[in-house]
């Protein structure tokens, strides 16, 4: 069935691992694999006391996020529109992995201007955690997330200082950043999980991170702080019931593929990207014209920087184009499907036909 092929492809692309063994009839198996949902209080407190992360700043290497937490975070980030939103994540640890089971939104907006945004939300957090524990969600807060609408997943200066503070007093704690605008335009979740290094620590080697384009007005902030944290690998998991329900949802989803219009929705974002690209091009041009007249004087490293700058610009423009073209393809296909019908049987309707219902 095509939906299963489509689903498998997506699962592969997005690294989803479902916490279930191959389908068997025994119910004991499903309960064993859904075991990740069980909260072992004893093991967690023991881990808290041992604190293995104190000696190794690079201790936590992986993050596992549940389907529910991911969904909630993305929906919340998207609902903020162009405003940054933030929230907390709840979960537990498992060796060198941090497991995020759930997330909830905090009534705070615009973290970029206030370092102490969390102080305002403390009461909310306490109330929410209390009610959650009563309702059977026993996990503790294990991190915070916020959104960077349109400018990529990385930690800004304020984010880095907030996270450093968190890692001093609330360990183990994780920082997650989501970009809802790029998620929609790229069709894949733009998400990053980070932990900061303690003050003065120099990482032993350069981490290789996936390239992402950063707008000019933020690139300085990014560059200054990008060495102060490292990113963790993210995998996702879902329960057996989630699997089953999501499978069924696929059967409905095909409607969305045909009805969505990514070009219309993301118009501002694309325009912003192109103008940003134009500015970067101007900058690159200025630097290039300098070296053009003084190739003998300009030191070699500077030239390398410029050409890689041009390479970056080319890559960015290619990415924007690809997304636009895909959007256009969808529009053209929709046009052919739904607009090129010819009313050939206009006179066919007999006199006994009732009046068509007005679609509300």
């Amino acid at each position, binding site marked *: 069935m095509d939906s299963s092929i489509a*689903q498998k492809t997506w699962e592969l692309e997005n690294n989803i691992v479902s916490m279930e063994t191959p389908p068997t009839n025994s119910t004991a198996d499903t309960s064993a694999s859904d075991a990740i*949902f069980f909260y072992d209080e004893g093991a967690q407190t023991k881990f808290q006391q041992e604190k293995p992360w104190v000696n190794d700043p690079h201790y936590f290497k992986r993050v596992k996020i549940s389907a529910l937490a991911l969904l909630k975070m993305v929906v919340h980030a998207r609902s903020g529109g162009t405003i940054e939103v933030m929230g907390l994540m709840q979960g537990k640890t498992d060796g060198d992995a941090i497991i995020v089971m759930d997330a909830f939104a905090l009534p705070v907006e615009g973290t970029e201007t206030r370092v102490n945004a969390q102080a305002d939300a403390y009461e909310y957090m306490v109330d929410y955690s209390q009610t959650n524990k*009563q309702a059977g969600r026993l996990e503790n807060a294990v991190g915070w997330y916020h959104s960077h609408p349109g400018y990529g997943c990385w930690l800004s200066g304020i984010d880095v200082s907030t996270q450093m503070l968190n890692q001093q007093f609330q360990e183990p704690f994780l920082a997650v950043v989501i970009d809802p605008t790029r998620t929609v335009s790229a069709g*894949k979740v733009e998400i990053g999980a980070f932990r900061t290094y303690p003050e003065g620590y120099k990482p032993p080697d350069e981490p290789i991170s996936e390239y992402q384009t950063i707008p000019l007005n933020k690139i300085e902030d990014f560059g200054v702080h990008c060495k102060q944290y490292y990113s963790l690998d993210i995998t996702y998991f879902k329960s057996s019931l989630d699997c089953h329900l999501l499978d069924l949802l696929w059967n409905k989803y*095909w409607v969305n593929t045909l009805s969505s219009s990514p070009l219309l929705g993301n118009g501002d974002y694309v325009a912003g990207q192109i103008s940003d690209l134009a500015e970067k091009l101007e900058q690159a041009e200025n630097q290039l014209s300098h070296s*053009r007249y003084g190739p003998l004087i300009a030191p070699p490293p500077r030239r390398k920087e410029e050409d890689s700058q041009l390479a970056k610009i080319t890559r960015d423009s290619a990415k924007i184009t690809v997304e*636009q073209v895909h959007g256009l393809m969808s529009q053209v296909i929709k046009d052919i499907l739904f*607009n090129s019908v010819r009313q050939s049987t206009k006179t066919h309707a007999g006199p006994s036909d009732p009046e068509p219902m007005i679609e509300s």
Partner: protein
Amino acid sequence: MASSSSSGLTFKLHPLVIVNISDHYTRVKSQMNHSSSATTTNDDNNNGAQPRVYGCVIGIQRGRTVEIFNSFELLYDPSTHSLDRAFLEKKQELYKKVFPHFYILGWYSTGSDAQESDMHIHKALMDINESPVYVLLNPSINPAQKDLPVTIFESERISVDHVAHLKPSDGGSAATQCQYPLPSVVVFFNFSDMNFALTCLAAHLTGIHSAIKMLNSRIRVLHHYLVAMQKGEIPCENSLLRQVSSLLRRLPAIESEKFQDDFLMEYNDTLLIAYLAMFTNCARYNILSFLPDFVSF
């Protein structure tokens, strides 16, 4: 069984609610199983017990459309057979702070069928919302199932004797109308890999292809049904005929000059962007011809 909601309401259920309920159920079940398997000595036949979980659904009602966006858990008091009221109000307050536009639309539970005791809870909620909805999720995993195991019940008020009955609205299409332009669903089901243009093109087109195939198969089913009706094999169902006829009259979807203009403008914009990208690409490699030979790129 009525084929559509009798009150004429359309329900839109956000997939987040479904995943929420599923997560709530899985959590409670795993806590229960873990503690029970530690105490019992015989094999796990406790896994057959399906705990019932309860919670509240929130969303917006606009006219005849009820959109259920989110949900949260509630405490069930088995002694009074009702939901903990103070807890509900506390939670509602918290959710109001973050989602000020949503209000309580009803409640949810898990199980295979609505029970009489549910009426009690339903009535209790009537003072918050005069016609609450009851969302029932069937957590048993049935691989043969094609449709979402979610049913939405709404109560019907008979004004004479103020007796409210639970009437299920269409368990199939109306209640599970998950046609939500969800970014997260887009995330789940759209493919795009920016590294390789060809693979991402292929992936994108495959997605559209599967969607069109589904559409085609559904239309075939309808067509087959209508032909059978024409031949007389199946009794004529006028409401269905009306729906099909109104659907057909909606095509072509948009056919105005303004649309054509806008469409072509969008088309041209995309071509321009592609052109610009092509230029940038060429410029990058052409720079070589302008600079002296010993400059290496």
